[in-house]
């Protein structure tokens, strides 16, 4: 187990390194620099001075080493688009709305999805199943900005019940969270349905039924427990996915979250912020997968590490 974790950590370090190099090179390969914007034209000398101040005139590998050296000390630099604070301070300010949005979306969507999936699996091939499956497919295939669009149209424009944008008062949180919740709900509905059907077809369920156990106990004590294994593993990566997944929801509802910075850091060649965002999200995904795999192994005694392949 420990060997396995160490191996995975090494693999994460390698991934992190490769991603950082590729992203750094790509970022600097994008034509233009941070001071080429049209809204504040600066003369060539001033630009050269600014670039020199920020170390942007040095060779790329020096810039890379400087930046990554800072990252190892948890110093992600200063964002060019808001020089009054560090990248970490900016994240601390912009992340909470995204986290509330994504977190509430997952916490509301996941249980609903599990219920929907259970209802579908237990009433297989009935109208409940078809309805739930149709709902899950819709949720997974329709882009989230389309869902947001429909919610805005119905609840904000036509019914005028809720505000279409903003983040100030809690009632303006409802629509974005609802829009975001469709993704975890659809994902979980699909997962739960197939996981439960998988377990329901196992011979041990037939044995339990033959033994005369009440159906409710079979479902809750045996089927659901076995099916939940697969469901646990998707949770954490999905939660991390909220960091980037909410870009569109935030754009649609004008939520002052992290999403806008993903776009603006790339558009404005804000190298420190861009690097920091991509590296942090990548690292979180790596650890989310690692923790999910470990949790899966702890919950499922049939899985043991060390046989070469996982």
């Amino acid at each position: 187990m420990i060997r396995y974790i160490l191996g995975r950590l090494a693999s994460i370090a390698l991934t992190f390194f490769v991603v950082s190099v590729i992203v750094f090179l790509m970022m600097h390969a994008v034509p233009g620099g941070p001071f080429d914007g049209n809204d504040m034209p600066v003369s060539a000398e001033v630009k050269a001075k600014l670039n020199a101040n920020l170390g942007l005139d040095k060779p790329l590998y020096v810039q890379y080493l400087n930046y990554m050296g800072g990252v190892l000390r948890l110093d992600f630099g200063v964002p060019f688009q808001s020089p009054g604070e560090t990248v970490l301070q900016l994240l601390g300010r912009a992340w909470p709305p995204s986290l509330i949005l994504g977190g509430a979306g997952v916490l509301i969507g996941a249980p609903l999805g599990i219920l929907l999936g259970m209802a579908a699996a237990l009433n297989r091939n009935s109208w409940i199943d078809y309805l739930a499956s149709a709902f899950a497919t819709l949720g997974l295939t329709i882009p989230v900005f389309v869902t947001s669009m429909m919610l805005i149209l119905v609840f904000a424009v036509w019914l005028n019940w809720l505000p279409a944008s903003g983040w100030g008062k809690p009632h303006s949180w409802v629509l974005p969270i609802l829009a975001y919740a469709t993704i975890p709900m659809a994902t979980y509905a699909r997962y739960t349905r197939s996981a439960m059907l998988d377990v329901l077809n196992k011979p041990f369920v037939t044995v339990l039924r033959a033994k005369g156990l009440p159906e409710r106990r079979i479902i809750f004590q045996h089927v659901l427990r076995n099916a939940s294994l697969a469901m646990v593993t998707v949770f954490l990566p999905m939660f991390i996915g909220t960091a980037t997944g909410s870009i569109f929801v935030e754009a649609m509802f004008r939520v002052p979250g992290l999403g806008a910075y993903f776009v603006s850091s790339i558009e404005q060649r804000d190298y420190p912020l861009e690097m920091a965002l991509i590296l942090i999200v990548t690292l979180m995904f790596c650890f989310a997968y690692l923790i999910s795999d470990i949790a899966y192994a702890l919950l499922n005694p049939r899985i043991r590490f060390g046989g070469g392949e996982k």
Partner: protein
Amino acid sequence: MTTEVLPLQRGPLYYAWRRFAANRAAMLSGVVLLVLVTMAVFAPLITRTGPTDQAFLTQALAFPSGEFWFGVDDLGRDFFTRIVYGARVSLTIGFAAAACSVIIGIPLGAVAGYYGGRADWAVMRLIELFSVVPPLLAAMLLGALTGGGFFTIILIAALFGWVQVCLLVRAQVKAFREKEFVRAAQAMGASPGYIIRRHLVPNAISPIIVGFVLAIPLAMMLEASLSFLGIGVPPPTPSWGQMINTGMNFMYFYWFLAVFPTGALALTVLATTLFGDGLRDALDPTLKGR
């Protein structure tokens, strides 16, 4: 039924078709998809003006009517025309990206599955790399790097679409590697390349088809997402994602500018996904999740 003398001669394709035809959702989405493709191909025949012609400037922002089925947009272009040409863009990008995904995915998957060991390790690390980097972020960066545009979007979508195809092919090749006919071919001195081309890839044809079809909606969604953010297909070209973004600004009154591209995108993606799901269930009943 009296004429059926030799029912045993039916091939697997017949049964696949029977299974597919029994799936009403898949059949319906197949029909929808066919209609959409026909509309996209014959776009000039069913529309009055070109997609970028500002032919109705005096009637800009006219509501849907008998004359303008989907209304007129803010720049005086017939919106129905824009939507139909948008189908062209969306479907072309979807199919082209899926084709590129298959072209990248098959050799990598086959090599990883056939050779195992180091090759497999390298391919799996590559896949891992693509699974931890959020595709949207990387696509945004690549879009900025290349300035967006039609072919760039296809490449970006393919870059993130091949993983699925590669995994499917790898699993299939791995399962067939130890089969007797492959052993026999090896014993007769066939080269690995020949075995992969002649025996293993043809045997993986159903997962490849499924992977191809399921890559289409993902590519279309990526295109719409990037265009929505303004780093996809550049403006004069009609793209649904772009139209949704513009429509947002007019939503409070001119609702049709947002609703029609939204509906078109949702319908196309949904139809392709259901078609792909049906195809998967029909071609490989063991994968069926029910």
